């Protein structure tokens, strides 16, 4: 592992951190950039184009020596022609290192191999709020394309000056600027030699339309895939430093327990350094086994408070309202028309309740961090979706300015929304400070199950009204605790009341891939089938009758066609169902075929067809990979994943007790991509997941007549009475 470069400048334009301490601003000078990055060309992307436009003017150079503060990415072309892109985004399996490289290669007209992405390093990359919410493709991909286009134009300008000709005659082609009239060319290295050019991205730079893409829009394998198949890639938990110790934290026996007394003697006799600071107790030792044994030898007395249990979960959520709101979703309350009269005067009125359990992310790499102090300066390598957020947490925890903290995120063993926080980073740093040596903390799977956080559990209550002809006239939807992402209906209903109710949560909860959209779509799309059955209309016809959104209609129709919707069943136990929706700017329709073995109660998802539309497709194969992965991961929460807990303890916090999807669970996955090259590219890591659970629920009804309204649906199989 390479030591972090010690640089005099900390490139820290601005922060948008929700919980950060005092906002520090550092003006970044052009000269400092080149001191850090080397000579060449730098193009900076600023978040507020208006401000930049004012500063950059036609000359594209800022007056004075400093660049704007609100930078979200920059690109450097060195004197050797090598391209380095700096972004605060983090790679954990979404393959954005590859898709962002494609975007830069496209606009800059260079081979992908010449581009290096520096990601998620708080000292080298611009501030970034975090990698979540499917934001990388719609925002960072677009910004980097603009940055690369601006760099290309700068190179063309340099070549034009060199040849004393007009820029409009020149083209960029395979790492060179060429004059097609004379066929003379100059490569980027030659053009960059001796330059120290910095420019701020103009507000609008013409981009290559998706229909003309050459590199973007094509399937490209994981860019550094070889490091992964050879075991050479170093994940956060693989990091190592000379003199490094292994840390381990003493966990309370249950949530909310407080430490009464502590006797560390036995642990110290074993050769471990014991740190006791408030409720934090941990050890640092020469090996992880020794650290674990030392923690086990600490004699601690805890005081526990009674805690809610899983058996009363949904009741608890209904009875324990809390303040606040859900900033991640679609708003907490939405009302249109007159819903009460519509429900009162309905031809058919239907009321159903749905629930979802807490589930765990189970990233295969658990939380891990390696921390190292140099005086008051702290460096931490850790797996997190929010390197800058974790830097803020570390600064706050140790009461040091953020510019003394550097967080680096090596490409990580997945997150799925579960790695927004910096627990392991803080623990490693606390132990390292006491031990005066670098300390690595890697959570065990059991720690990951108990001391991380969960996808929220929730209760959804739906009341609806429909006319005999299949027109939905009233829709009332309440969500307790799970969240407001995807809570709004995309069906055209004149009278609606939609409310998110924040409640107290018995367990620590947080982000999870697709957030509450999974729960809200499960309830809504299950209910749509219930309504269709009530008025005896085919579920697809019923949806289309109440749906105007053309993009959503298109995915439903495409998936139905590929699935062969309307075909007769060919065997007993077979069932077909659908679900779909709109989330994070993408459109999905999912059709499922299930087989229910009435004797054994086994429910097997046999086939899943997904039609997905996310604007112009950047990397078709990478996109398919994300959609397939969403379906496989979604199977777990739909069928069998649930955290069970009792009085402050997780009861199934091991992989031998918590079932996640395996090879044998995987259905035939068929994916239809609708490539809208006329629309901006948006993200795909989350939306494809949301249609699966209702599609399975509706298929189970089709197979058995049994309506399952709780996720997971069949943790113990399906008993048909």
């Amino acid at each position, binding site marked *: 592992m390479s030591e972090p470069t010690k640089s005099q400048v900390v490139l820290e334009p601005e922060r948008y951190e929700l919980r950060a301490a005092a906002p520090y601003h550092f003006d970044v000078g052009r000269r400092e950039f080149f001191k850090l990055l080397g000579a060449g060309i730098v193009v900076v992307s600023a978040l507020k184009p208006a401000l930049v436009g004012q500063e950059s003017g036609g000359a594209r150079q800022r007056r004075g020596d400093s660049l704007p503060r609100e930078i979200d990415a920059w690109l450097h072309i060195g004197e050797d022609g090598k391209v380095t892109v700096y972004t605060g985004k983090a790679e954990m399996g979404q393959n954005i290192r590859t898709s962002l490289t494609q975007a830069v290669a496209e606009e800059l007209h260079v081979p992908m191999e010449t581009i290096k992405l520096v990601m998620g390093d708080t000292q080298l990359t611009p501030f970034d709020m975090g990698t979540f919410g499917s934001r990388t493709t719609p925002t960072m991909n677009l910004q980097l394309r603009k940055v690369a286009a601006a760099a290309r134009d700068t190179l063309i300008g340099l070549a034009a000056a060199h040849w004393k000709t007009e820029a409009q005659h020149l083209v960029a082609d395979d790492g060179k600027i060429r004059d097609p009239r004379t066929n003379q060319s100059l490569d980027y290295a030659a053009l960059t030699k001796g330059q120290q050019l910095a420019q701020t991205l103009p507000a609008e730079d013409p981009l290559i339309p998706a229909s003309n893409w050459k590199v973007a829009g094509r399937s490209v394998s994981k860019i550094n895939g070889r490091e992964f*198949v050879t075991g050479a890639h170093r*994940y956060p938990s693989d990091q190592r430093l000379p003199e490094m110790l292994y840390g381990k934290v003493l966990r309370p026996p249950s949530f909310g327990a407080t430490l009464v007394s502590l006797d560390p003697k036995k642990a110290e006799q074993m050769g471990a350094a014991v740190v006791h600071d408030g409720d934090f107790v941990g050890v640092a030792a020469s090996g992880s086994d020794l650290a674990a044994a030392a923690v086990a030898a600490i004699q601690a007395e805890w005081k526990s408070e009674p805690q809610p249990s899983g058996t009363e979960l949904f009741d608890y959520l209904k009875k324990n309202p809390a303040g606040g709101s859900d900033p991640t979703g679609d708003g907490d309350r939405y009302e249109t028309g007159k819903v009460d009269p519509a429900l009162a005067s309905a031809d058919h009125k239907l009321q159903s309740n749905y629930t979802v359990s807490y589930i765990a992310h189970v990233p295969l790499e658990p939380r891990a961090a390696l921390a190292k102090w140099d005086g008051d300066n702290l460096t931490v390598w850790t797996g997190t979706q929010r390197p800058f957020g974790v830097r803020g947490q570390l600064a706050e925890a140790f009461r040091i300015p953020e510019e003394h903290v550097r967080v680096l995120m090596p490409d990580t063993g997945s997150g799925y929304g579960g790695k927004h926080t910096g627990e392991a980073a803080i623990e490693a740093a606390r132990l390292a400070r006491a031990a005066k040596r670098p300390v690595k903390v890697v959570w065990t799977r059991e720690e990951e199950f108990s001391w991380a956080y969960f996808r929220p559990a929730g209760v959804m209550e739906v009341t609806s009204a429909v006319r005999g002809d299949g027109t939905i006239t009233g829709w009332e939807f309440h969500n307790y605790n799970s969240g407001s992402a995807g809570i709004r209906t995309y069906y055209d209903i004149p009278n609606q009341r939609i409310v998110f109710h924040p409640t107290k949560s018995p367990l620590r909860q947080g982000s999870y891939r697709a957030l509450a959209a999974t729960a809200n779509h499960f309830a809504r799309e299950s209910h749509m089938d219930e309504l269709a059955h009530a008025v005896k209309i085919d579920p697809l016809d019923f949806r289309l009758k109440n749906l105007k959104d053309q993009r959503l209609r298109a995915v439903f129709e495409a998936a139905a066609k590929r699935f062969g919707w309307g075909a007769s069943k060919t065997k007993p136990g077979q069932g077909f169902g659908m679900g779909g929706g709109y989330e994070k700017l993408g459109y999905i329709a999912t059709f499922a075929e299930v087989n229910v073995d009435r004797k054994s109660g086994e429910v097997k998802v046999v086939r899943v067809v997904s039609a997905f539309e996310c604007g112009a497709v950047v990397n078709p*194969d990478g996109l398919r990979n994300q959609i397939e992965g969403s379906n496989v991961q979604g199977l777990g929460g739909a069928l069998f994943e649930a955290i069970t807990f009792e009085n402050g303890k997780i009861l199934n916090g091991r992989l031998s007790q918590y079932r996640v999807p395996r090879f044998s669970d995987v259905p035939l996955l068929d994916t239809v991509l609708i490539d809208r090259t006329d629309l901006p590219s948006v993200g795909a890591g989350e939306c494809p997941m949301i249609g699966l659970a209702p599609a399975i629920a509706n298929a189970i009804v089709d197979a058995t007549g049994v309506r399952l309204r709780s996720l997971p649906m069949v943790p113990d199989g399906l008993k048909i009475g």
Partner: protein
Amino acid sequence: MPKLGLAINGRAYTVDVDPQTSLLTVLREGLDLTGSKYGCGEGQCGACTVLIDGKAQRSCITKVESVTGRQITTIEGLATADQLHPVQAAFLDADAMQCGYCTSGMIMSAVALLKRNPAPQENEIIDFMDGNLCRCGTYPRILGAIQKAARSMAAPSAAKRAAR
């Protein structure tokens, strides 16, 4: 502590550890061979899979004393010089990974499977690989990669037979 002799990737090592220590800990902490991953510590996820005398074994639940004098192969020992093992090449070609954390264990299990059964049926692959978890859900690609590797490993020997 007693010194133990280990043969890993064709190289002899002597380690000075408690014989009860897991092979995974010895590989990762003692020898800095970090390609084998920790995922669960109870043999449930397969991320730590290595070959012991050619057979797949979960190194997290393997005591180091039980493998002295045996041939241990880890992901780091699979490729020769610049030549990837056909299973590695197939995983790369099929893009059979997202975060890649399960990849080394998947590859080691697949190598063991193909050693035992060079032309496995799809259901045989699924049965054998069911103990390896990919939380990103790339199973269909991994399945395809293993089938592809089986074909490419069979091809040279088929060619040899044809030449005879």
